[in-house]
């Protein structure tokens, strides 16, 4: 999906379109949920499992 154009693009614009920040957001969401869980909020097992498989899918984005 790449192309050969050399139009300059800002780093911020690059990161917005990149899956790595999404993975970071997902990890942060998992961390927040973990803290809430430690605080007594009930978290059912499928919630972290769903976040995990989404992380696994994003991790393979480099082979797109």
């Amino acid at each position, binding site marked *: 999906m790449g192309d050969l154009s050399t139009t300059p*693009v800002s780093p911020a614009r690059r990161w917005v379109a990149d899956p790595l920040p*999404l993975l970071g957001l997902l990890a942060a969401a998992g961390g927040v949920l973990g803290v809430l869980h430690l605080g007594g909020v009930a978290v059912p097992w499928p919630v972290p499992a769903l976040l995990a*498989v989404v992380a*696994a899918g994003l991790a393979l984005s480099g082979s797109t």
Partner: protein
Amino acid sequence: MASVRGRSIQLRLWLAFLAGCTVGGAFTGTALGVFSGLLSPLPLPLRAGVLGALALFLVVLDLRQPVLRLPQRSQLIPQEVFARGMARGGFRFGVEYGCGFRTLVPSAASYVAALFVLLAGMPLGWAACLGAAFGVARSVAVLQYILLGRPGWQQFLSSHTRWLERGGTVVATALLAWSTLLLLG
């Protein structure tokens, strides 16, 4: 940058790709869920222990190896899948891409996720659902490219793809460890 017309076509093709990825992922999840039934006679704590040991091994392997070397199909999905039209091709490409084993697998995250579905002993519906979510997630980067991509998108992603692969492995494993602990009650 894609023109409006071009982006519209790309989005329609992506929808077919998304549907295929979801079906492919759900297929893998269902298959793993069925096979997990064979392991159900084993007590959950034992299966959780095996899962923990294998997951730890895979994380260390992914973090240590410059390029992950695990059993996988070392071929790209053939272009012939588009021979019967773009929409059908996008769907078929998505099925092969979303199932998680028909093309390159450069991160241990999907292996850890597959082991979780295999060993955690969940209802079959949840196994299919987790597989489908994996498939959907595989299509997200393509949507990002269509909506937000700029020239050189692939090259930029390639510059840190190993961070993405390893980060995904660590995040997925941590979340699955937590989920396993919740299952153990």
